């Protein structure tokens, strides 16, 4: 019971830390780190939801009668989510490299302001 409380609280702690880093911090790199923390929180929450008191890992071992096992579905979902997260992270970093090259800054708000200024300029 206590364990569950701690795990749920840590998952939510990770989620909130991530949201803070994305919403309140201005540096793009910080936003991306926050995204990674946020994803960790979601993953932990999912795995914790699938846990079962006294359950075994969902792998059959030859010659043993299987005991009660934890729910395998959240684990499969989290595996998928981890890989998705890495793909998004890699694309984000590639874009960061180009933004830095082109704007010389990685300050999210400054980039947004210059973007807005550029879209106002007449283009033909």
């Amino acid at each position, binding site marked *: 019971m206590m364990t569950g409380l701690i795990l749920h609280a840590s998952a939510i702690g990770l989620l909130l830390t991530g949201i803070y880093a994305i919403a309140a911090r201005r540096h793009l*790199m910080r936003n991306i780190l926050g995204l990674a923390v946020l994803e960790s929180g979601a993953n932990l929450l999912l795995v914790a939801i699938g846990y079962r008191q006294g359950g075994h890992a969902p792998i059959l071992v030859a010659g043993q009668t299987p005991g009660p*096992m934890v729910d395998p579905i959240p684990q499969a979902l989290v595996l998928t989510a981890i890989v998705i997260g890495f793909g998004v992270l890699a694309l984000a970093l590639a874009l960061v490299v180009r933004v830095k090259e082109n704007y010389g800054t990685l300050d999210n708000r400054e980039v947004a302001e210059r973007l807005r200024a550029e879209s106002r300029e007449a283009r033909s």
Partner: protein
Amino acid sequence: MILLVTLIAIVMLAAAILTVTLRNWLAATAALSVVSLALSVLFALLRAPDVALAEAAVGAGLSGVLLALTLRRVGLWTNNDGKPGDSQ
């Protein structure tokens, strides 16, 4: 189990807060890897060995390397004093 979980959770949350606050980018990235490693231990404790393995390999390993390489490429590798124009 409860002691172990508590200990790891504290380490993980502390590392997460460091990730979003540390001014040294390399240290912040390292802190993120610590989050992933702690998470991977928690996954193992929650009877999810597959997930633990993936989190360790992808979250702590590859993501960390990729982040570090990007920091080097955008010139934040050693920037730990935070120029005024480049707010963190």
